[in-house]
């Protein structure tokens, strides 16, 4: 390997990137756009869910219960209807996420004693929203029920006892349960996948498609020099983009950064090297840009997006999918990102993440160097 030739190769690649100002602009803008997209767009903090009510009694008691829903920040009673088909239509069209039905003998049965039930029809096509919604609704009804019982016991001159149990929940690492603190660190992995594999996967395929590969092969530059020359500029871009993400995460979305910069640098560099080599490998194998981009999508972007724990918790996936995630670099990178940002785990404790990442980097680098031969096939 000659330093001069490597420099020339990298220089050519840099010129090619810079000459295409839009691609360059986009590559530099991408981290900003992605961090903002995910930071604002990805949230599960549900509030003001539209509720329809069908109060079949319209008594003081039933109205008191509904008032509790109205004053709760999670619910918005948008309409009261007086027949069942209207409720069905509201749920069908998505105008209501929940419909409450209060029985016609609500207060009467409360007076008689025993349990009265209030029906909540919930649009469960979105299971997560439905789950959270039911939890909140149950808490409202529970509160109402407790107050009624308290009053009932007092009226009978009985001594009111304090509740037997109090649950003191502390949420660690992300005290206010901010979605952005959970999501934004992982965006680094997505950005790097796009740069690392998406863009580099096109570089060799492009040379083949345009016919410039023959010219490249006829020069004395070696296979290893071509690879390093092609990848170095993208490495620089990738690390720069990672930096932009980190700055935005910390200063714009106020995500706590509790770990060390060193740990972040090491894990990011390892992940980026692994992905660049993977992208290069795909590019060599695919030989045309359409195929390369589609393969890169499945091999790098989707895993970073779906199988890394970025959005969806890995423990909740089926067992065999969990096994698959173990052979994906993105999993280890996202997990190290969350630990570095939120938990402040020192680099010495990250061996479970860094060692696999290092193995991937070395293995994929070897794979990439072995596959590309300077031959015209």
């Amino acid at each position, binding site marked *: 390997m000659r330093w001069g030739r490597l420099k020339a190769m990298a220089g050519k690649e840099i010129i090619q990137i810079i000459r*295409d100002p*839009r691609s360059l602009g986009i590559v530099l803008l991408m981290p900003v*756009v*992605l961090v903002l*997209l995910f930071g604002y*767009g990805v*949230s*599960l903090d549900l*509030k003001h869910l539209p509720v329809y009510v069908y109060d079949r009694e319209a008594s003081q008691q039933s109205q008191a*219960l509904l008032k509790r829903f109205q004053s709760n920040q999670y619910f918005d009673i948008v309409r009261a209807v007086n027949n069942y088909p209207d409720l069905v*239509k509201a749920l069908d069209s998505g105008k209501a996420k929940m419909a409450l039905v209060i029985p016609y003998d609500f207060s009467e049965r*409360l*007076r*008689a004693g*025993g349990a*009265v039930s*209030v029906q909540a*029809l*919930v649009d*469960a*096509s979105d*299971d*997560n*929203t439905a*789950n*959270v919604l039911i939890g909140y*609704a*149950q808490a409202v009804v529970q509160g109402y*029920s407790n107050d009624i019982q308290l009053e009932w*016991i007092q009226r009978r001159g*009985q001594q009111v006892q304090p509740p*037997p149990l109090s*649950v*003191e*929940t*502390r949420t*660690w*690492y992300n005290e206010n*349960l*901010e*979605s952005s603190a*959970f999501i934004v660190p992982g965006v680094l992995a997505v950005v790097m996948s*796009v740069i690392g594999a998406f*863009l580099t996967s*096109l570089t060799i395929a492009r040379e083949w498609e*345009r016919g410039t590969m023959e010219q490249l092969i006829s020069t004395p530059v070696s296979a290893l020099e071509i690879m390093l020359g092609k990848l170095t500029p993208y490495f620089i871009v990738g690390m720069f983009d990672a930096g932009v993400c980190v700055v935005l995460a910390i200063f714009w979305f106020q995500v706590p950064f509790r770990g060390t910069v060193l740990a972040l640098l090491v894990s990011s560099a390892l992940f980026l090297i692994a992905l660049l080599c993977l992208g290069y490998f795909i590019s060599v194998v695919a030989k*045309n*840009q*359409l*195929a390369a981009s*589609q393969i890169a*999508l499945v091999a790098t972007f*989707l895993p970073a997006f779906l199988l890394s724990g970025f959005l*969806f*918790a890995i*423990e*909740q996936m*089926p067992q065999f*999918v969990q096994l698959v995630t173990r052979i994906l670099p993105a999993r280890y990178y996202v997990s190290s990102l969350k*630990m570095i940002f939120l938990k402040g785990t020192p680099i010495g404790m990250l061996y479970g993440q860094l060692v696999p990442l290092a193995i991937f980097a070395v293995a994929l680098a070897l794979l990439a160097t072995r596959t590309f031969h300077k031959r015209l096939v």
Partner: protein
Amino acid sequence: MLSRLKQMLIKEFLQVFRDKRTRFVLFVPPIVQMLIFGYAATFEIQHVPTAILDLDHTQESRELISRFSSSPYFQVGWQLTRPQELVDLIDRGEATVALQIHPGFSEDLRKGQTAPLQVIVDATNSNTALIAAGYVNQIAQGFAQDYQTERMGRISPYLVDNIPSVELQPRPWYNVNLKSRWFFVPGVIGSLTLVLVTTLTAFAVVREREIGTLEQIMVTPIRPFEFILGKTVPFFLIGLLDVSLIAAVGTLWFRVPLRGSIAVLFAGTVLFMLCMLGAGLLISTVSSTQQQAMVTAFFFIMPAIIFSGFGFPISTMPQWLQYLTYFNPLRYFLIVLRGTYLKGTGFSILWPEMIAMAALGSFLLVLSVLRFHKALD
């Protein structure tokens, strides 16, 4: 005109199906993505790894613990003896929930005082934390209620039988078992259609430009309009075939019920694909290389998916973003998909979405055809 169009179509199909790799990437990655998404995308929370530190060792504390270990939501993996172990497990991310029962727990209960139950939740994943904390509360509440009832029963059985209470009876519609997969599979069909049709169309045109064959086509008597049709029709058909394939995987493999009519689904799909053809053409008019097209398409695809309600409810986004989602064709297509799949709704409910897609589609197509003429001149 028809014969020229026919020639153009033959050329396109030849070009697509001649290459083994292209044939492969047109059909295999979409199905792989469908499978990965179907398995990985879930917000269901079950078997949360849980550690318990019981410092009381009484019948009451064991009774409480057994309620957790018999719940499907928690997987009690550790029974600890020292507080430090609890902290370590959470720090290393092995346990997500930790319960701590203090010495004197049962004594408090017997004396009629409020006994504390300390809960630590790892909130690096804020969604898991929120839902898991809700389940902890639910279980603890159940324990407290039963204890209270039993205590009251000892004092006066009359009270237990006659005390009024209100309970919520949740009826999750459309997805009775609250399966995440039922929510995500229709969404994945929509997102994959978007990705496929947009990138295929954009690549098809830009490829000719990049390789230099666009000029050759332009010197033939073919008219720009015929050229556009010749380019879009094949990918419309291939896209339709792909959508049918992934929809079949969703219905037959993942067993998501298709409750509505196929005609409604088909109409919605065609309208949505027109929007995506327009978007793909538009991207091709502003790109001169496939790499540019890829990056530009990416910048269209990511926001379109994130701001569609695919995984994250639109109502949780900032207000100004919610307004922007009205210009997103995927937003409407997802409503149509979930409507036909889960709710079984038809045109009578879904017509506003259909009209919105038709309007956006014609706008995008007209705009892209106009721009395309300009790009050729």
